[in-house]
């Protein structure tokens, strides 16, 4: 009895506001400790000369790293490669993902089965995807070269990971394979939410497949397309696993993106200061994008 009374008292004294704040404290501590604080530290680091081999010398160099960066042609190449990698990964993943979602939304045989298994490429770790594609795209024993030659598409075996352009193509194909089910997942859920009456109305009006796709399906998908694509721009700009496992950014920087260049500068060249500088510029690029992402999320999911 006594216990119960104090409990109620505690309840009353704990206002909604304090309770709400208390609940988010664990998140704030974790995110603050592992994301925010290291991020701020990283920004400070970008103004220093800090080499891992000689960590006692932490010279403050103001904007010297940034000046150097502007003149660093590998940085600009990494910028270009990030955009190429992201653009084609999304173009491929989006197209295949949308096509699959539309197909799985139709009445097809084994519909339940296909809907069950289509996520498979997405749940396989990117490192394993990379190793598998490294094997399949191998110049001498790879199955891809063999099939392409059998089909008379190529005359000689292509050294996929040995030449700049083929390397980028192979990496993007592996990435698309890993990611397209995610688009399908998002799109299919939305397609299923389109009311039957709407589809029937179009049917009665005699709309053909393309018309009903453009005028009925697409408007329904607009929000989810925006959210998914924005998310994918950010994820692909951050993509590290696939490129690092297959090419380490090579041959001769042909697949070096921001994430690869930053990582290599930090953990191969041990120039933490300069690596942080690359990271900060990359952050600014992402922030500009994040601004739009949040705008979209805010509007479309009516958070508050």
């Amino acid at each position, binding site marked *: 009895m006594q216990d119960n009374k104090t409990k109620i008292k505690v309840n009353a004294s704990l206002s909604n506001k304090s309770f709400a704040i208390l609940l988010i404290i664990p*998140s704030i501590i974790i995110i603050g400790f*592992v994301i925010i604080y290291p991020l701020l530290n990283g920004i400070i680091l970008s103004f220093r000369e800090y080499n891992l081999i000689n960590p006692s010398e932490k010279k403050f160099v103001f904007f010297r790293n940034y000046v150097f960066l502007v003149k660093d042609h590998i940085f600009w190449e990494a910028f270009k490669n990030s955009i190429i990698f992201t653009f084609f990964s999304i173009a491929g993943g989006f197209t295949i993902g949308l096509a699959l979602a539309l197909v799985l939304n139709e009445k097809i045989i084994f519909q339940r089965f296909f809907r069950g298994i289509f996520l*498979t490429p997405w749940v396989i770790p990117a490192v394993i995807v990379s190793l598998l594609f490294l094997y399949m795209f191998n110049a001498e024993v790879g199955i891809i070269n063999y099939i392409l030659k059998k089909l008379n598409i190529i005359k000689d075996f292509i050294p996929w990971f040995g030449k700049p352009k083929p390397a980028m193509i192979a990496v993007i194909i592996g990435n698309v394979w890993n990611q397209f089910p995610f688009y399908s997942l998002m799109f299919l*859920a939305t397609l299923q939410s389109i009311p039957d009456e709407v589809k029937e109305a179009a049917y009665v009006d005699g709309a053909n497949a393309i018309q009903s796709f453009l005028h009925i399906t697409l408007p329904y998908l607009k929000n989810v397309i925006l959210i998914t694509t924005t998310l994918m721009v950010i994820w692909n700009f951050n993509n590290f696993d696939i490129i690092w496992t297959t090419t380490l950014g090579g041959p001769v920087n042909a697949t070096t993106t921001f994430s690869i260049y930053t990582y290599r500068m930090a953990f191969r060249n041990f120039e933490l200061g300069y690596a942080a500088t690359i990271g900060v510029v990359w952050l600014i690029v992402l922030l500009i994008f994040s601004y739009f992402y949040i705008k979209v999320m805010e509007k479309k999911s009516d958070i508050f």
Partner: protein
Amino acid sequence: MIFSNIYRARKVVLKIMTYVVLVAILIFAFFPIFWMLSTSFKPNHLAFSIPPKWIPKPFILDSYKKQITDRGGFVVFFKNGVIISLSVTILTVIVAIFSGYSFSRFRFKGQKTIFLLILATQMFPYVLIVISLYVMFRNLGLLNTYPGLILSLTTLSLPFSIWMMKGFCDTVPKEVEEAALVDGSSKIGILIRIVIPMILPGMIAVALFSFLVAWNNLLFSLTLSLRNDMLTIPPGFLMTYVGEFQYRWSDMCAGSVLVSVPVIVIFIFFQKYLVAGLTAGSVKG
């Protein structure tokens, strides 16, 4: 009459197109998996044969046996992966429930800013973060430790998980809680006894998502654990199979199958919850 014929013809064409697309995508999606399975049952020298052997003959389990007895490699990576990913899952689910519920139910000044800041963190360049994390963890002695890896991997999925959880909490009717409050239940009691049972699907969605992120991540584990016995599966596989002279494709494929199958089965089984979670916000609009 003619009109309906055209109509029917159109439908047939559409049906054929649907199946053509389906078959093409299925080949694209499952050929690599077929090849992985096929290779995993071959002796290694046949993994190099041109023309390729489509069906493994002889059909052997040697590579699988090698993996599950590799106590200095595969077994360690798998064990670390399970321990770390499960801890991340539990931590993420608990923390995300608290935050998601708070963001869903209560209003206070600065709340929106905090929520957007949390969402924004998933867009920060992880390599930049991992650089300072490395320095920080080295000073704190958190390199090569489970707590260090668990904490850092949790933040990768936490923002999205909070967002999902908030979406699920939004679907719980307020009246249920108000009734309980009148009955004299404490606020935390309401959350645990009334809200949590109602958002179980959301918890499954968050659990799946955070497990997958931790299980698959390379960057954090590669950077923050340097000792071989602390590696998870992605860095473990990277160290084992990349850059050797003697490629062991059969072993690699067998290991890949062992790593992927449990996750694939779990996902097929619980997929609908993940769909509900991932689209909680985006479908509504």
